[in-house]
């Protein structure tokens, strides 16, 4: 198994599975193919874990960060695939509709695997762009006005963003052309970065950050992410908020770690802090205003991506990675539960909800625990990562940034809590449509959501030292 | 022990003297000196009419109030003779016992559900609250002056004219305590027991519904309260060196003067407007602060 699971094998297998998914016309075949894809993913993850830092394919290599993100991807991919089938069942979608969705899902996840594995900046770019295209199919899934609009905007702005990032890569090679570092692989760049012209490095980083921000979902190009998460089916929103964001992080973080070996590191840090702070500001502004639950969750992702950038900028890399991973799980659970919310209320609006505790007790539990996780309070792991990030920031020369960030976080906490609590408790005085109650099967469907949230608690506080150690290694890209 | 006896004796005739003074000054003969005692005895013998609205609180309150005053009496010394229950900082206990009596009487008033009694209760609460700072500042100042913190020790070293003690301070202290006594006993210028317009009464209106034994207890309590403050005032004048018989004479003399003063004030002064009362009581605190500063100067702690 180990030796067999070369990344090429994985990509070939994924391509075959995607192809078969498109032509498979029975439900069981679809499920079987999805399952086999998950197995493929899992075995790739295991394989990469056992062959860390070995260059297998020309431009593909796994380091601990890759494996960490792959593990997250495997888990969330499995949950999303499972949820996708249920979603189609509830909506009564045709099998061909589902088939396209599944194939795109497989494509999407595989492209992200590519992003995690690539060690060449151009290839990262290419995989990220490809993930946009596959994601477009998934966002478009519902085929209504909103999804058309969101998909158009998403693809267009992603394309522009990614073009900007490409300009950033070109600027990097301008910086590199003065030296011998013609190779744009991360290893070569890291080796040569300190000889490059700092001005060009700064410009290229700026363009790369601005371009990839659309993937990471932070300022400046976060808007279309919000729209996409709004329009996509909830399990796809979960993936966009987690694994795709992780891919954006992976790209930005690898670039950061290349550049941080040079003299511009303080500048890099302050740019990341600025970007993170602006993201949190934007999140705060919109969470105060938003009336749509799904967009609320999307804005919360913006906030957490901002926190991750702040953690990176202040040097709390471990906290950044931990927060990223924990947020992936927590936010996925919330988005999946949002799916139930929509089924019960037939609306995305927050004020359509109310008395969720009685209508869907198990789901209400997910909302509560998820809210705690997103608000980063004990006993959630996010508490630990956010605390580490903020305390590290407070210990740096930029500690006064915290004076801006912390009040904004408080505003977000207030607004989020207010809205979720109103969904849970506010008595419903609506017409019969909204009086529906959750069925037993819906209660059962919350089990994976609880499992995801359990991971958030477990990883934060009771994770075995080996796991923590591995995360530590993953967060330090170069010694 | 002597103190308690003195208080009880004084309580017997205090109200009588006040009333007698008032009637003489008003050109009447007035009731006998012990009319008050007769009234109480009569009340003790009588049955009672109680309101259907009221509860156990209403019935229990006079008892607690009486006991609180009684306990307060045990804290007062007689010159160098220690009090029955002397301890450090008994000043605090003294003030709080009076507060306890007030607390239960207010509750009893509210228990009747009468609008008038509510009004009286409310005023009683506020005036009682406002008067306390003055009391504590005065006794705190005296404590600074003497270095002692219980009534017994305090009065064993302090009296008007005693060596090194400024007359001024004692006079001011006496003035403040006198006023406190008037307020606590619901007398002019804060309250007027004579008034028969319920809206203007404080203490009297609170006990409108009490009758029989309970009313008797209340009357005993208020007499004792007077006597209590009377003895407190007398203590300023009890020279330690004097023999007991002289001390007794001084004590009764002070109390008789006190009672006559009360009577005189009530004859010549009109009651304050209700609105003015808080401000009036606050003046006492200001005077008390004045005493405090004088003491600081006197003990060389504050150099001007």
């Amino acid at each position, binding site marked *: 198994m180990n030796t067999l699971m070369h990344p090429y094998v994985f990509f070939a297998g994924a391509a075959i599975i995607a192809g078969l998914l498109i032509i498979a016309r029975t439900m069981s075949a679809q499920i079987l193919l999805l399952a086999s894809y998950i197995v493929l993913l899992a075995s790739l993850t295991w394989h990469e874990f056992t062959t860390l830092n070995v260059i297998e394919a020309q431009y593909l290599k796994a380091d601990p960060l890759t494996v960490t993100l792959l593990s997250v991807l495997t888990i969330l991919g499995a949950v999303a695939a499972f949820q996708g089938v249920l979603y189609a069942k509830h909506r009564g979608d045709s099998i061909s509709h589902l088939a396209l969705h599944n194939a795109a899902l497989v494509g999407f996840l595989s492209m992200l695997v590519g992003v995690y594995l690539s060690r060449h900046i151009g290839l990262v770019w290419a995989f990220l762009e490809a993930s946009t295209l596959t994601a477009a199919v998934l966002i478009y899934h519902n085929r209504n006005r909103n999804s058309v609009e969101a998909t158009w905007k998403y693809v267009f702005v992603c394309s522009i963003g990614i073009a900007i990032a490409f300009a950033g890569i070109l600027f990097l090679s301008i910086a590199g052309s003065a030296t011998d570092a013609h190779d744009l692989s991360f290893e070569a760049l890291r080796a040569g970065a300190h000889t490059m012209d700092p001005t060009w490095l700064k410009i290229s980083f700026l363009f790369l950050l601005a371009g990839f921000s659309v993937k990471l979902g932070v300022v*400046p190009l976060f808007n279309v992410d919000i729209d996409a998460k709004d329009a996509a089916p909830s399990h796809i929103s979960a993936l966009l908020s987690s694994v795709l964001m992780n891919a954006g992080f992976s790209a930005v973080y690898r670039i950061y770690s290349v550049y941080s070996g040079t003299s511009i590191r303080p500048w890099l840090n302050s740019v990341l802090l600025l970007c993170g702070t602006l993201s949190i500001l934007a999140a705060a502004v919109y969470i105060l205003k938003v009336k749509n639950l799904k967009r609320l969750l999307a804005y919360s992702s913006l906030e957490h991506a901002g926190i991750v950038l702040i953690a990176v900028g202040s040097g709390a890399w471990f906290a950044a990675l931990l927060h990223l991973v924990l947020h992936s799980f927590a936010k996925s659970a919330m988005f999946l539960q949002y799916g139930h919310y929509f089924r019960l209320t037939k609306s995305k609006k927050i004020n359509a909800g109310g008395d969720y505790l009685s209508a869907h007790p198990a789901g209400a539990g997910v909302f509560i625990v998820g809210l705690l996780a997103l608000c980063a309070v004990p006993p959630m792991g996010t508490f630990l990562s956010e605390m580490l990030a903020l305390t590290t920031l407070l210990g740096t020369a930029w500690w006064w940034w915290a004076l801006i960030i912390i009040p904004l976080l408080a505003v977000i906490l207030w607004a989020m809590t207010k809205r979720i609590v109103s969904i849970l408790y506010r008595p419903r005085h609506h017409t019969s449509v909204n009086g529906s109650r959750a069925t037993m099967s819906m209660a059962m469907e919350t089990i994976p959501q609880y499992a995801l949230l359990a991971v958030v608690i477990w990883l934060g506080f009771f994770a075995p030292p080996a796991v923590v150690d591995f995360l530590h290694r993953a967060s330090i890209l170069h010694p | 022990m002597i103190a308690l006896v003195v208080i009880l004796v004084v309580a017997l005739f205090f109200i009588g003297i006040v009333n007698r003074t008032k009637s003489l000054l008003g050109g009447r003969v007035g009731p006998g000196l012990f009319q008050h005692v007769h009234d109480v005895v009569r009340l*003790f013998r009588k049955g009672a*009419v*109680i309101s259907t609205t009221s509860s156990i609180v209403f019935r229990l309150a006079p008892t607690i109030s009486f006991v609180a005053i009684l306990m307060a009496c045990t804290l007062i010394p007689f010159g160098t003779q220690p009090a029955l229950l002397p301890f450090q900082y008994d000043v605090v206990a003294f003030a709080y016992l009076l507060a306890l009596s007030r607390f239960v009487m207010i509750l009893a008033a509210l228990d009747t559900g*009468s609008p008038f009694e509510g009004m009286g209760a409310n005023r009683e609460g506020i005036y*009682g609250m406002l008067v306390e700072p003055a009391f504590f500042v005065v006794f705190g100042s005296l404590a600074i002056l003497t270095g002692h913190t219980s009534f017994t020790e305090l009065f064993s070293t302090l009296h008007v004219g005693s060596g090194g003690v400024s007359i001024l301070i004692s006079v001011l202290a006496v003035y403040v305590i006198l006023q406190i006594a008037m307020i606590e006993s619901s007398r002019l210028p804060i309250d007027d027991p004579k008034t028969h317009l319920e809206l203007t009464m404080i203490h009297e209106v609170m006990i409108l519904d009490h009758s029989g034994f309970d009313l008797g207890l209340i009357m005993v309590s208020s007499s004792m309260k007077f006597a209590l403050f009377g003895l407190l005032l007398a203590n300023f004048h009890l020279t330690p060196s004097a023999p007991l018989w002289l001390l007794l004479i001084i004590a009764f003399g002070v109390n008789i003067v006190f009672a006559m003063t009360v009577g005189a004030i009530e004859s010549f002064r009109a009651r304050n407007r209700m609105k003015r009362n808080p401000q009036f009581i606050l003046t006492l605190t200001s005077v008390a602060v004045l005493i405090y500063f004088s003491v600081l100067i006197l003990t060389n702690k504050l150099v001007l």
Partner: protein
Amino acid sequence: MRLTFMVACVVSLVIAFVTSIPAVTVLVTGMAWSADIGSVTYVADSFSAFMVLVINTGSVLAALYGVRYLADDPDGRSLTESILHGTSFVALHAAMIGVVISSDLYSLFYFWEAMSISSFLLVLFDARQTKARTAAIRYILQMHIGAVGILVAIGFVSSAMGGVTYSLVHDYAASHQTWIVLLPLAVAFAMKAGLFPLHSWLPDTHAAAPSHVSGLMSGVMIKLGAYGLIRFGLLTDPSTELGTVLLVIGIATALFGIVNAIGQRDLKKLLAYSSVENMGLIVMSVGMAFIARGIDAPYIEIAAWSGVVLHILHHMLIKAVLFQSAGNILHGTHTRDLNNLGGLIHTMPGTVNLLLLGGLGISALPGSSGFVSEFPMYISGIKTMMMSSTSISMLGVFSVVTLCLAGGFAIIAFTKAIGIGALGTARTKAPLTAHDPHWTTRFPQWLAFGGALFIAVAPGMFIRALSGVLYGLSEKHIPHDLLTTLDTVGIGQAVLIIVVGIVWLLRMLATRTKPVAEGPTWGCGFQEGDARIQYTATTYADSTIEIMSPVTDVSVSYRHIDPADMFPRTRSYHTEEKDLIANKVFDPLAIGVERVLRALAVLQSGNMRSYILYAFVFIVVVVVLTLAEVL
């Protein structure tokens, strides 16, 4: 609901049992307990052990009451809700213990946040009502803002010292400016303790919480704010300046709290403001102790600490009694508005008796535990007055005047709570149909009251038992005459109670044969008196509020009758009690922040062309900032 909470109650009992044993051991032997769990060290010195006992007592009382209280809960609740409530209760109990046995800032912050969040979830219990929901959310927001103080302290200390254990905090404070670490921490603790002007969450939250939780929060949780102030005050070698600051804040809190308590119409809010007052007194006394340490006056210091310790105990027990009584009344009448109550003593005698006894206690009247706990505070105050320095002496005057004013105001507040709420005649139908809940609800109340009574008659015993705690706080032994004084006070209290009994018996004997007639209350000739002519909660407070108007905020909505109104229409008179600070400071601030943030909300216009612009704006901004050397 009841079953789930019973489980919680049992778990809470187990926690209490397990943690009390080491705590008692610490108190008896004087040896600190410490344990390594994971890589974290937990330590319980005598003060922690004392707090553990306080927490356990308070939690167990709340749990016992809660079981029965929830059994009478009228709303249908889902299993999730029950589990949430039970879990949060246990979590709160555990988190509070965690707070007092933490020995580094990380653990402290963790448990602190856990405490806030679990209590928030508990407050959510009645969140189906809009008011409760709003209150709960405001609560968590303010707690979160408060907790930031600990975060800031962690940031500064860990970056400078490489760790955050308390001993490193001490070193940090010694080697840097003390206030850098103390100020942020103090904000966190003051917020939790409800100190003026950070108290505004407290009344709303306590009113919104179910009664067993309000009792627990008020009796125990907010004390942990004081715990923090004491713990870190001592760590940073307290100076007279720190003491003075605490003293002044304590005075402001106490007076503000009790004056506002008088204004309240809501029974639970009244109790909550009274908790603000009591926290103020505790902090004032802490300040006094620090001042005494600064000027090296051991007697005053010990007296002040005794006051703190006794007051914590007394307030925990009495507030449990009072809030639980309020809970009974709420369940019986479905209202907390004093203006709708009255005459409860006839329909709910069991509850009202406890309310009465609790009211006596909380007003610190003789015969109650409140008196003995305020007594050492008076001692320290008067003794400070007698100190040689004029400025110190003045502080003594302030504290004594505060104590007596607070006592006087408390009498008004609680005669109002009891007199308007429970005595007189019923103002609406609600009190008439009410009845006492099952006797088991009153069991924990009597338990608490029994404890308080024990303190009242034997304060010396408690102080002796807690001499280790006092030694830990002051590093001094208790002077003998202080103990004697307290013993005398205790005896005096016992005598008072006994004499009341004797006189009552005598009165009974004397009046046994006398005829007793019953009739209507004397109406001064007016025969048609009914419940509506009684004094109300609003009118009873009116004259106090009038003289204290600068610190209260009671809005009156009433249109005066216009002489031109030929046929006056129906009129209404409505008053609303608000918190001055919340209404005049925090709310406008919050609204301002919200307005600014909302004004920024033009970015997500839906217009894609501007989205792309943002990328360039961002790049340009960073370039400009870089050129300006800001970044």
